[in-house]
């Protein structure tokens, strides 16, 4: 048993429905979440990330598999016996209570002394900067303020793990950015393990210590944001997080022979043979003059101006499409013309062989 692990999920399966019509929302998921970590479950809607969160919170029981908290099996414990709190997507604040009463609710239910409740509530109000709002009803608050109350309410009992179910999705962009920083600050100040569910890849990349990418009820890849982005293990991860060019080829000594006939360096080709798929991020594609040695000949088919970047669509000699994201020049259009013959090369280490 590893002492650094806060939550361990072992072979969790969750099936909804019966018999042939049963849907596996979670399909044999195992994951270890470390103490004090900001862990994000990232995936499209319906991938099972919220189900996994609800399993940890205790709102659902797994069809099979176990959930351990600090090494203790909590699979069958009801939610009110788990030292785990949730920030709900809709906040679910108690409308009949004031802000302070909402924050103190968990402590009150635990039967803590009144003085302690008042103390912790005051600290929490200060932590989320809502001191002056203590006696307001929650319906009198703005969305961002309600979000802070929901956070303070879930943090007040000092849970071992805080679960956050897409808590920022109801906020507008500017507020969302502020709350991202706020969340990160709260996590660092409290030292509590955060498990954060989102479908927003940017949110996941900027806030997390580690990310678990989910799809179709399975965890596809677990790793630090940089690993996930630069070393995606499969096509799903490479396309869900950021954008990728996918190139098919075959492993040879010294690299991967692309279908257009050129040989390129590729990470992750060791121990692989036969047909593979390469992923290359658009910003790692460089344009050079046509005919340069070692570069892949290509033709510009189109380009789109995005402000900071210009996306240049290219066709390789066999017609495979590749997108290059180029920094927009201060003046002019950097000589981009439809139909112009150019060459491209990938930044060193940028081409990554994907798993199946």
């Amino acid at each position, binding site marked *: 048993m590893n002492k650094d692990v806060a939550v361990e999920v072992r072979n969790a399966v969750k099936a909804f429905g019966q018999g042939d019509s049963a849907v596996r929302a979670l399909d044999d998921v195992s994951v270890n979440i470390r103490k004090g970590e900001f862990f994000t479950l990232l995936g499209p809607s319906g991938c099972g990330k919220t189900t996994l969160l609800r399993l940890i919170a205790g709102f659902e029981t797994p069809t099979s598999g176990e959930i351990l908290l600090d090494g203790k099996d909590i699979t069958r414990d009801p939610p009110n016996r788990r030292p785990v709190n949730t920030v709900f997507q809709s906040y679910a604040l108690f409308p009949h209570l004031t802000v302070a009463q909402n924050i103190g*609710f968990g402590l009150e239910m635990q039967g803590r002394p009144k003085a302690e409740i008042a103390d912790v509530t005051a600290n929490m109000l200060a932590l989320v900067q809502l001191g002056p709002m203590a006696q307001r009803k929650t319906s009198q608050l703005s969305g961002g303020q309600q979000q802070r109350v929901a956070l303070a309410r879930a943090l007040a009992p000092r849970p071992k793990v805080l679960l956050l179910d897409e808590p920022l999705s109801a906020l507008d962009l500017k507020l969302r950015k502020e709350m991202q920083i706020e969340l990160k600050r709260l996590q660092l100040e409290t030292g509590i393990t955060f498990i954060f569910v989102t479908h927003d890849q940017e949110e996941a990349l900027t806030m997390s210590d580690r990310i678990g990418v989910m799809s179709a009820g399975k965890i596809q890849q677990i790793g630090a944001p940089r690993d996930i982005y630069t070393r995606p293990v499969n096509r799903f991860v490479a396309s869900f997080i950021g954008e990728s060019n996918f190139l098919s080829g075959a492993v040879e000594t010294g690299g991967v022979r692309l279908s257009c006939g050129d040989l390129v360096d590729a990470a992750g080709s060791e121990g692989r043979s036969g047909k593979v798929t390469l992923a290359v991020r658009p910003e790692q594609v460089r344009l050079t003059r046509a005919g340069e040695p070692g570069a892949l000949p290509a033709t510009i088919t189109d380009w789109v101006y995005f402000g900071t970047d210009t996306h240049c669509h290219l066709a390789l000699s066999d017609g495979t499409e590749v997108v290059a994201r180029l920094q927009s020049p201060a003046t002019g259009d950097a000589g981009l013309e439809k139909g112009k013959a150019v060459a491209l090369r990938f930044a060193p280490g940028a081409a990554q062989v994907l798993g199946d």
Partner: protein
Amino acid sequence: MPSNEDRQRAASTRTGWALSAPALLLLGFAASGPLLIVLVYSFLTPGDYGNVVWKFSLDGWRGILFTRDIFDGTLQLADAHLSIFWRSVKLSLLTTAITFAVGFPTAWFIATRSPKSRALWLFLITIPFWTNLLIRTVAINEVIRNEGIINTLLIRIGLIGEPLRIIYTDTAVLIGMAYVYLPLMVLPLFAAIDRFDMKLLEAGYDLYASRWQVLRRVILPIVKPGIVAGSILVFVPSLGAYVTPRVLGGGKNMMIGNFIELQFGAGRNWPLGAALSMTLLIIVTVALLFYVRAANRGSPHG
């Protein structure tokens, strides 16, 4: 000098009053007219064959609590009257409590069904309204009387040797009233529970509340408006109930409604009946004032 805007506002206020005048007049007469007649009659002298004699008297009001001895003419406290008042209040409170105990789970059940089957359940709840109250009450009589369905069945399976005596007791009246007024409790409770955000249950459990604490600290305070409305809708008509105690309570277990009817009928004492009606009105008003105030204070969170 009034500004243009002020003049416009005054004109629109005038039009508003003018347009609502017919409704207001009708409501005013319909509500206060009969009440006024009853009030006046309560201060008159009873005629020999019913009706009233236009002679001022406080005997009607005195008669609520006292009876005049037929031999020496002294006033004595009327125990029978007091017991009728007490029975009415007691049975009405019990009816309210029973309809809440049965109605709350029912309303919760309906509110948590799918929208489609919810309509069906609500429809089923309202079906009893289609039948005349008297017929429904007689049906209850058929169920609980000595030779009725329940007793026949229990004797047939040998659980009891003698029929249970339910009919013509307070219990019979209670069963009847709870049955008749149950929909009036369920419907406002359903409306309140329907608006209740079920996510709050998870929030409660998540914050270490037990099932009981979630019920007491989250659900009940939030659906309180429905509880108050349902209780008023059941308590007020229960207190003035006439048909149910008459059919199920027999002649002995009178409630205020029957007592009032008696004065206007066989008793030939209209002033006393009128005074009793006013008393009923006062009891209801006072009870409601207390109840609403207690309900508002009862929640620690305003």
